[in-house]
């Protein structure tokens, strides 16, 4: 992404794209697709599904671009919302089917020892596995709040619920995650000290 593009808002880039600027599409893709992909990976727990959700969400963005009215909403909020709804749709369709709980690979970090990397990998797998045990809406709220670090009002806009409901979902989600992980403390190398 060019330095100039970083200073242009998502709104403006989307209008540029709608007006035929192909470079704006590349800038928007570089800026937004990693966020959608990251959330979809955590919510779906499956790389192939996350890729499909990301491509479909971005496709809907391109289709919607000519009707976008700048200043009315944030492009990223709109996109997260589309992605979350796509995740829910896919989960509903796949209900009863096989769900990969440990399909989020961890990239190797050369700065860590092999043992540390393995332990951190195991912890991240455990986090993902615990996330997948949460009810759908709790998982979405926790991922958006604690992994994407979005504000509660923004999450409320994405999930179409009140800020209080977001707070409730994230609090319950965190308690449930902590409870699941507590049973694996020793296995994950946490000391009692």
């Amino acid at each position, binding site marked *: 992404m060019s330095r100039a593009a970083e200073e242009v808002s998502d709104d403006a880039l989307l209008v540029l*794209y*709608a007006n*035929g600027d*192909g470079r704006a*599409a*590349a800038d928007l*893709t*570089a800026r937004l*697709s*990693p966020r959608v*992909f*990251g959330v979809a*990976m*955590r919510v779906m727990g499956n*790389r192939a599904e996350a*890729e499909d959700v*990301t*491509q479909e969400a*971005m*496709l809907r963005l*391109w*289709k919607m*671009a*000519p009707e976008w009215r700048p200043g009315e909403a944030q492009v990223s909020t709109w996109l997260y919302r589309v992605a979350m709804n796509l995740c829910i749709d896919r989960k509903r369709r796949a209900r009863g089917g096989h769900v990969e709980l440990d399909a*989020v*690979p*961890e*990239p190797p*970090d050369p700065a860590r020892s092999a043992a540390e990397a393995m332990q*951190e990998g195991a*912890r*991240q797998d*455990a*986090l993902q596995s615990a996330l997948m045990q949460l009810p759908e809406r709790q998982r979405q709220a926790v991922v958006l709040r*604690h*992994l994407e*670090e979005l504000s509660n009002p923004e999450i409320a806009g994405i999930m179409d619920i009140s800020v209080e409901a977001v707070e409730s979902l994230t609090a319950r989600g*965190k308690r449930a*995650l*902590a*409870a699941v*992980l*507590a049973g694996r*403390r020793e296995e994950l190398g*946490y000391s009692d000290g």
Partner: protein
Amino acid sequence: MAETDKALQELEDLFAAARAERPAVPDRLTAAILEDAARERLRAEPVAPRRPARRPLWRQLAEAVGGWPAMGGLAAASAAGLWIGLAPPSFVPDPVALAGYEDSSTAVPYENYDMAVMLSEDLQ
């Protein structure tokens, strides 16, 4: 309580580690997204307005007066007017009389002449 706090702190640490290792978007996914963008951009490009097809004069006239329903009404009114003009009902004044013309036998030339008289005059 201390146990819960510790578990929540460990969870926060896990969140922090997860945020630091965001999964990278595969190159082929980026390429597919950009392909979609290019295709949608072409589809959305405004096309030159097409010249409207040339329509026959009778259709243009029909549309000018309001389409086929209006044309039907117009035809019915015209037929009724013609009929009333040719054979006015008894309670309608005769338009010819109103115009000052008398429908009398004197108005018809040569009524009392027959062909023989005319021929005899020509012979004289």
